[in-house]
């Protein structure tokens, strides 16, 4: 699997990212690093805890990272959740749960695509 194919799988825009970062190997490096990124798990925890402010911050960060890496699909759902959580309310709005599910779905898609890409790299051609 090439990295372009990986991007296709996760619903991302490789061409965009390639323009932004100095080299393909760097793109690859950061894509792999995404697997270690904590924002998604932080988001889930915050949502569980009912902490709106934290959830907002985590969603916001996830959105930013997705934007940087060109993960358009994840960017969209994370963005939607971010906007919903932006309003400074005491508790998490009810609609947030549904949006969270979308984020979870897109996140899983993204991560599995990256993992598949990694595995295909390890396999001898």
């Amino acid at each position: 699997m090439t990295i372009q194919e990986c991007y296709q799988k996760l619903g991302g825009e490789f061409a965009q990212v390639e323009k932004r970062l100095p080299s393909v190997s760097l793109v690859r490096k950061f894509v792999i690093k995404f697997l270690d990124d904590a924002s998604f798990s932080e988001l889930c925890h915050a949502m569980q805890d009912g902490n709106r402010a934290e959830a907002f911050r985590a969603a916001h960060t996830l959105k930013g990272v997705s934007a940087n890496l060109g993960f358009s699909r994840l960017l969209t759902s994370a963005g939607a959740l971010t906007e919903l959580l932006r309003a400074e309310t005491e508790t998490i709005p009810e609609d947030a749960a549904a949006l969270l599910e979308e984020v979870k779905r897109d996140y899983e898609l993204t991560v599995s695509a990256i993992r598949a890409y990694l595995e295909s790299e390890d396999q001898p051609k």
Partner: protein
Amino acid sequence: MVQKKHVLIVEDNELNRAILGEILSSDYQVLEAENGQEALEVLRHHKDSIALILLDVMMPVMDGYAFLDRIKADKELSLIPVIVMTQSDGEEDEVSALAHGATDFVPKPYRPQVILHRVASLIKLRETAAMVNQFQYDRLTGLYSKEFFYQKVREQLLENPEEDYCIVCSNIENFKLVNDIFGQEAGDRLLKEVAGITQSMVGDTGFCGHLGADRFLCLQKREQERQDRLNFGSFPEQEVSPLLKSVVMRWGIYEITDRSVPVEQMCDRALLAANSIKGQYNQFFAVYDESLRDKLLREQVITDAMEPALAEEQFVVYFQPKYSLNDDCMAGAEALVRWDHPEWGFMSPGEFIPLFEKNGFIPRMDQYVWEKVCRQLRDWQEGGISRCSGLCECIPGGCVPGKSGGYVPGAYPKVRRGPRVSASGDHGERLCGKPRADHQHGGGAAEAGLHH
């Protein structure tokens, strides 16, 4: 190898930090901090080397705005440019960032070329500002430099059309002597001390500049300046160094009435006023008025005319007879010089002798008068007027160097053709009692003698 400049990235997300770091590492040395608190720590150790800060707004443990507020409050840190990384959520973020004192913002997703360009130009801007700062302030005294002082005066006048101001120019009498005798270091220390005192005298209501060497300029509100003059001498005993106690300062004041005059000229006038009391005992202030300017113009006109006047023999020597009461007869004469100018008419020595002493024309004048006198003496002798033994008269400053009290006729070769002139005790008269070098003070004595 030129060291790369340091840039501090303050961002809590590791991935973002890595990406940013990667973008910048080609051109800069990257320092990282996870949140505002950490960033402050890093700044504490590296504040002199960090050229720019890239700041994420959303961070736990001191968010971006709180961090911004903190560094803007610190005198040194506030000078470091800050670029805030915003997410294109709308204008709010950006406006907030700028309102909190951020220098610029860059939206996410990161666009490497844009970031690099913005970082470079902000760093350059700050370096230029630092350089300009150097030109604005005089390095030795910390007061405004000349050009910047002029600029500040212009601004002040523009912003306060109703207020009355004046320019005060001060200089130290014989400052060169101080440098010569005590050395340049002492001279510099003296200047710093004077600058400090001047600044404290002016206070907040005006400002001061260092014009160069021993000259200082101040802008003061007119009322304040007048008050200062009244209170002069009654200042509380300040801790001044012995060196400062032994110098004399003069102040020239130009009261700004005509704002169409260029500031440089206003300062020149104040300087003129200060110079007009140079060497005068117990005179420390002088206020510029039009007569000073007229005097200067007149002096220039005379200076321009002196050479041709000499060539055209416009200077006329008159002989004033002297009568001896003891002997009951004419005892001699005194040679006096007058300038008969074709246009200006008769000019008394008081108008030009001090000026010639000042500008060094006087020896030529001396020589001229000597010749005239000697020729006249020869004429008289040939004409049979007896007892024309000698007449000595000395034009101040024109004494031929030799022992004081005597002079060498031979110094003027032309004179040899005339009669021998000797200094004789009875008929002799010294008008200039002071040594040659002291031309300035000779002026007074000469006037007294020549005005008989």
